[in-house]
């Protein structure tokens, strides 16, 4: 089993590929350089982590797009309120991403993200609507989908990662009513 690469305590990191590389090289023994040329398949938890990282990057890109729209001249009168409401949620997604990335050790020359292009990770798949109400509804749906996806991922994840996924999933679930309040207008303040 590849359970040896699993982070038993949260401060330990999932070692990307490197742990699997060593035994492979040892078995093959001397000679072939090809062994090191082809990276071995990743441990399952590395795949889970990469998917979660990619999902957070997409979410951050979505928020960035909506905030950019709110900050533009055509943003409308409610744009300032929108920015105030969305910035804390974006900050939490950035914290999620940093925490997920900290669980990976990335060998030199490899990228932590699932997609190598840092500019717009798969953000083009579902373009963010420009109208504020539609954009908020879009973010709500994206938060719900992200929270649900993490629930599915955590079932097979190692314990420590499952707990992090559950916590992030819960955080994303709490963003939904906040966005709902934003959609209903400035009167919808919770506290």
């Amino acid at each position, binding site marked *: 089993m590849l359970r040896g690469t699993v982070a038993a305590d949260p401060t330990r990191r999932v070692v990307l590929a490197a742990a699997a590389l060593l035994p492979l090289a040892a078995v093959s023994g001397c000679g072939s350089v090809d062994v090191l040329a082809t990276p071995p398949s990743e441990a399952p938890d590395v795949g889970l982590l990469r998917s979660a990282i990619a999902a957070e990057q997409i979410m951050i890109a979505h928020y960035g797009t909506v905030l950019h729209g709110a900050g533009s001249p055509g943003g409308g009168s409610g744009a300032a309120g929108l920015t105030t409401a969305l910035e*804390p949620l974006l900050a939490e997604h*950035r914290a*999620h*991403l940093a925490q997920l990335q900290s669980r990976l050790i990335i060998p030199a020359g490899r990228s*932590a993200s699932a997609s190598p292009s*840092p500019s717009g990770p798969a953000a083009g798949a579902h373009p963010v609507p420009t109208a504020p109400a539609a954009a908020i509804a879009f973010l709500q749906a994206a938060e719900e989908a992200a929270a649900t996806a993490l629930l599915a991922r955590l*079932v097979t994840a190692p314990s420590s990662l499952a707990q992090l996924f*559950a*916590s992030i999933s*819960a955080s994303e679930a709490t963003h939904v009513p906040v966005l709902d309040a934003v959609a209903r207008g400035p009167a919808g303040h919770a506290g």
Partner: protein
Amino acid sequence: MSRQASPAPQAAGTVSALQAALTAEHAAVYGYGVVGAYLAGRKQAAATADWVAHQEARDKLEALLRARGSQPVAAAVAYRLPIRVRNSSGAASLAVLLEDRITTAYLGLVALDTPAVRKFGALQVQASALRAAYWRGSTVAFPGLPASALAAPRRPGAGSGG
């Protein structure tokens, strides 16, 4: 070696995590009685709904324990509350504290290997985080996770910030 005769360690871990969550739910059921007493209107209705949710979660945990042949821990007659409630804002603060403890207790279930228990725990983590966010009036990045469980991010060179 003294525990040779006990069921598999995994099962023992499951039972103790379920009992910990049940203990937290007993305290929440008691605590929400106090929370509701200091509230009125919509907030009181919210507290009542949350009180019912905790009773349902308690019943579910008791059923999970009985299904494993374990006697569920009983509720205490009274609980020492973490803060003294004197008004509505104190009531909301107590609800936040209760929910935060519950969230952490359910994260204990998420660490278990039984998929059904893990899933139940994760859904309850969501539910309690939602209630906590309502009473707190804001959200947090890592509901239920103590700071000690979080690695200090080391700024991975990806430049994904802003």
